[in-house]
C-alpha cells in the first residue's frame, strides 16, 4: 500500500523560514542591547542554519509541499519583487547615510542583518498574500 504524505502548506513552510530568519536578528538585538553577549554572531547564524536544515529534512521526508501550485508561485513572485525593491532601497540609503551622515556602519553586521531581514520579509509578505480569508475557506 502506498504511503501518502501529509500536507504541509507552503504558507506554513514560509512561517518557519520567517521565524528562522528573524530569530538571529532578535537574538543579536537582545545581546547588543544587553551589552554582554555570550554568543558570537557566527554561532547565532550557524544555529539558524542548522535549524533550517533540520526543518527542511523533516518537511521533505514527512510532508508534501504545495510549491507547484501556480497561485503559490504568483504570490511568491509578488513577495520577491517587493523584497528586492526594499533591499535595493535599504542598500542605496545605507550608502548615502554612510557617505554623508554617519560614518561608521559595521559592515558585517549591516550585511547579515539585511540578508536575514530580507529572507524574513520575503516569507512574511508571502504569508500575507497567501493567507486566505475566513470567508474564502468556506466550502461552497
Amino acid at each position, binding site marked *: 500500500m502506498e504511503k501518502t504524505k501529509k500536507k504541509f*502548506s507552503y504558507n506554513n513552510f514560509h512561517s518557519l523560514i520567517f521565524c528562522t530568519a528573524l530569530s538571529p536578528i532578535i537574538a543579536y538585538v537582545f545581546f547588543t542591547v544587553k551589552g554582554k553577549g555570550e554568543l558570537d554572531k557566527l554561532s547565532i547564524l550557524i544555529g539558524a542554519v542548522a535549524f533550517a536544515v533540520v526543518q527542511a529534512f523533516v518537511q521533505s521526508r514527512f510532508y508534501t509541499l*504545495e510549491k*507547484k*501550485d*501556480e*497561485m*503559490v508561485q*504568483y504570490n511568491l513572485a509578488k513577495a520577491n519583487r517587493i523584497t528586492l525593491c526594499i533591499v535595493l532601497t535599504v542598500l542605496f540609503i545605507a550608502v548615502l547615510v554612510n557617505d554623508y551622515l554617519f560614518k561608521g556602519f559595521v559592515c558585517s553586521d549591516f550585511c547579515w542583518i539585511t540578508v536575514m531581514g530580507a529572507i524574513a520579509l520575503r516569507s512574511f509578505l508571502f504569508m500575507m498574500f*497567501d493567507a*486566505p480569508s475566513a470567508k*474564502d*475557506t468556506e*466550502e*461552497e
Partner: protein
Amino acid sequence: MPELKTKLKEYRAKHDMKQGELAELVGVRRETIIRLEKGLYNPSLKLAMDIAKVFGTTVEEIFSFEE
C-alpha cells in the same frame, strides 16, 4: 483593464463537484480554485485548459474577459 469572468462555480455545481475535488483533479490547492471562482486570480493557460478538460468543455466557455 479587462475583468476576468468565470462560470467555474456553475460548472462545478452542474457536475456536483466540491472545490477540493476539482483542485485535486487539476493539481492545485483549493484556495486557488476559490480565488478563481471569485475572479481574484487569472489562471495560466495550462490550468484553464485542465479545468475545461475536467468539465469536457472549452476554455472560452468557462473563462472570458469583460471590458
